[in-house]
């Protein structure tokens, strides 16, 4: 028991001092640490303390399924047309989550199947599983069903891309240190510290920004249009700002140019009227295609479509050769800017919906931090005083351990770049209370052994030895509930669990190993015959 080699003492002090030192940057104001040559890792404050906005976005997977069906429909139509000899198909439908079409000539089944296998990835995707199921019924009807493996993979890819797009859009807003994390299969968590009105952010994220240019179908009959019917090969789209007053317009299905071919989009001003507009530049392929189509259709109108809604449908006055275009759509500076940001950050592969939102004002956060610090300080003071009047010298050792433990918890939290939330502060205060439990167990055991008439050394030795087992078991069970909280909890609860778990680990070290060292040094130096405990 009294054998406590010097290297071990040095090691214990070393570990505790280093871990405590890690807490120092977090306690200093940021403007001081900003001037340090190496940026230390600090404890982040959660939104409930720092103030700011939290958004939970969910992707509409139905939307993704539908757009996948639609693009498959386009692909099938194009491929069958291009086949030699051309494969005639009809009665295409995308209802019921599947794509079905009829072959005009049943003899072409094999040729059609070969084409379909080619465009559905040869039947096997990266994972070796088919992305689409191809069925033939009644000798000439093809049915394409997306497989669940293919869908899962598509959702996964889309969510990865969507997270990137969300990040780019938020960066464009110039907000400070946003956190953007994927959660589960189809969710994204966005946290923006300091943001008070998330409306602009929500507007921006609510746009998928799918940009398409299509030719207007001028042959459409206005009466049919009003009923939502379009000529074959065309579709009806909403056109809220239509100068003719009808909020619909018919456009031809083929896409002249899409947002994928944009290289940039900026908010600008119309030269004559000084109205805000959006300037776009296309890449080489897009520019050429735009030039060719505009040349062939001079005098006819084309529609600029964002998210399936026509923004404007100007006439083509002359061939547009420069590889750039302008959208004039009755914008304000803000709405033009927003569209420009959305366009240049790329389209979202899937629509996102806000399903949970919270915002904390800066005053409440500041109050919470101040209250938390005061409460923690008072809690430490009360516990320290109580331990000292109860256990005297041994209480003082425990107190030193508690104070060091406070620093060590902060240090570990800073090292892990953890986030301190309001419940985290509660966890902190609770840990101060539970950390001394180990010392209470040890000290009560020492008292008991002294009552049984053991010598000082024996009592201390037995006290630490017997109590250690209990402390271990008690802390394991405590940690079980902490781990469950960490795994299943969300946001604030997780913050609580992190502090609790760190506290459990560090308090065993400070309350048992560290105080034992102090007690041993005292016993060795003074060789006491009696003890006041």
């Amino acid at each position, binding site marked *: 028991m009294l054998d406590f080699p010097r290297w071990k003492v040095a090691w214990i002090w070393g570990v505790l001092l280093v871990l405590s030192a890690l807490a120092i940057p977090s306690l200093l104001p940021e403007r001081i640490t900003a001037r340090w040559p190496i940026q230390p890792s600090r404890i982040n404050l959660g939104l409930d303390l720092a103030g700011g906005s939290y958004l939970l976005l969910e992707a509409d997977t139905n939307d993704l399924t539908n757009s996948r069906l639609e693009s498959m429909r386009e692909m099938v139509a194009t491929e069958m047309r291009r086949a030699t000899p051309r494969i005639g198909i009809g009665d295409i439908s995308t209802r019921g989550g599947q794509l079905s079409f009829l072959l005009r000539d049943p003899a072409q089944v094999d040729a059609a199947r070969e084409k379909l296998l080619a465009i559905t990835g040869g039947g096997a995707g990266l994972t070796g599983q088919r992305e689409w199921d191809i069925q033939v019924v009644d000798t000439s009807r093809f049915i394409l069903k997306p497989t669940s493996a293919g869908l899962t993979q598509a959702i996964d890819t889309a969510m990865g891309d969507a997270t990137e797009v969300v990040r780019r859009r938020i960066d464009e807003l110039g907000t400070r240190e946003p956190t953007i994390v994927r959660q589960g299969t189809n969710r994204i968590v966005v946290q923006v510290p300091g943001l008070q009105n998330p409306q602009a952010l929500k507007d921006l994220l609510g746009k998928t920004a799918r940009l398409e240019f299509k030719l207007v179908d001028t042959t459409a009959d206005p009466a049919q249009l009003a009923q939502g019917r379009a000529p074959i090969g065309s579709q009806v789209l909403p056109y809220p700002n239509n100068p003719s007053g009808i909020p619909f317009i018919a456009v031809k299905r083929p896409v002249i140019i899409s947002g994928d071919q944009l290289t940039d989009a900026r908010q600008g001003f119309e030269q004559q009227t000084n109205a805000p507009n959006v300037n776009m530049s296309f890449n080489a392929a897009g520019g050429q295609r735009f030039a060719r189509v505009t040349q062939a259709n001079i005098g006819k109108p084309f529609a600029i479509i964002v998210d399936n809604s026509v923004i404007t449908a100007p006439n083509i006055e002359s061939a547009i050769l420069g590889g750039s275009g302008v959208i004039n759509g009755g914008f304000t500076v803000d709405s033009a800017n927003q569209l420009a940001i959305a366009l240049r950050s790329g389209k979202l592969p899937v629509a996102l919906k806000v399903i949970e939102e919270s915002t904390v004002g800066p005053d409440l956060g500041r109050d919470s931090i101040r209250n938390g610090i005061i409460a923690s300080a008072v809690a430490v003071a009360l516990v320290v005083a109580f331990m000292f009047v109860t256990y005297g010298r041994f209480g003082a050792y425990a107190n030193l351990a508690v104070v060091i433990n406070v620093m060590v918890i902060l240090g570990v939290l800073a090292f892990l770049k953890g986030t301190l939330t309001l419940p985290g502060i509660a966890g902190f205060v609770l840990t101060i209370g539970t950390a001394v439990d180990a010392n209470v167990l040890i000290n009560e055991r020492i008292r008991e052994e002294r009552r049984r008439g053991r010598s000082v050394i024996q009592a201390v030795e037995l006290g630490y030895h017997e109590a250690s087992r209990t402390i271990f078991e008690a802390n394991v069970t405590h940690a079980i509930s902490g781990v469950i909280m960490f795994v*299943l909890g969300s946001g604030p609860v997780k913050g609580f669990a992190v502090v609790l778990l760190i506290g459990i680990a560090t308090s065993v070290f400070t309350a048992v190993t560290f105080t034992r060292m102090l007690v041993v040094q005292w016993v060795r130096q003074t060789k006491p015959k009696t003890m006041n405990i």
Partner: protein
Amino acid sequence: MKLLKIIPDNTNIDFVRLRGWAFGLTLALSILACVLVGLRGLNFGVDFVGGLMIEERFATPPSQDRVRSVVDAQGVGEAQLQQQGDSRTLVIRLPVQQSADEGATNAVVRKVTGALSREFPNAQFNRYSTVSGKVSGELIRNGLLAIALAVLGIGLFAIFRFEWQFGVSTVVAIVHDLLMTLGFFALTRFEVDINIIAAFLTIIGYSINDKIVIDDRIRENMRRYRKMDMREIINLSVNETLPRTVMTSLTILLALAALLLLGGHVLRGFTAAMILGIVVGTYSSIYVSSSLLITLGLRADPDRERVAKRNSMEGAERIGPRA
């Protein structure tokens, strides 16, 4: 220096003899808690039922009726008002907005805070949150799952480390603690939000911690005094660990009291739940779980029993009790 001793040396309270009364009281309180929860229900926060919550701070304590009429005039559903912390802070709760438009909830927040700041100069929002019905369902499910897993995991740990009776008695005691805490929430109408799940799990963790310490001592004494009657062993163990039980509860209660009084209103329900949980958990360690061990038929020296069983299974000679 004269040191403080809260529990005098050689305290010997016959806890086991009191257990009849304790069981009666425990049962009565548990039934009362169930009735309270059943009759009054729990005041769930927006986390768990979905909807919209706005916390507004006023320059002077406002009249609730006036606030209600201002909010109701916005036509955004029936408002529930609740005072939080000081008298100047009010929480306004509104039902989920029936609209497909993503901006709808945000518009409601702006409408309400705008109307309030026109009516009450210098009123300002502290925080707001909106939760859709879908998310709230998941939060409830995850919360209940977490609690169930914690109880199960800890019960298994106790069975693995000790005898099965310890596992069962611990789980019964924890269910009792949780019932009491739920009853407390039904009685006080404190808001049950996501943080309360954390409070419940902490109560479970603490309560277990307390029981493990006593169970550990019971096990130790069972080995030390092989001949002693189980009642005496339990009484001895509970009395021996009583100073520690009381000391630890008091230190934690001191720390939590600081948090309750000084930690601000956001954490008040959370801290109150934990304080109650600590008190109830300490009570159940002494009266429920250890006394239940006798009812469950825990016997002294189970090692011997196990050895005897194993030997008989191997078909070896019958061995008599060890001297």
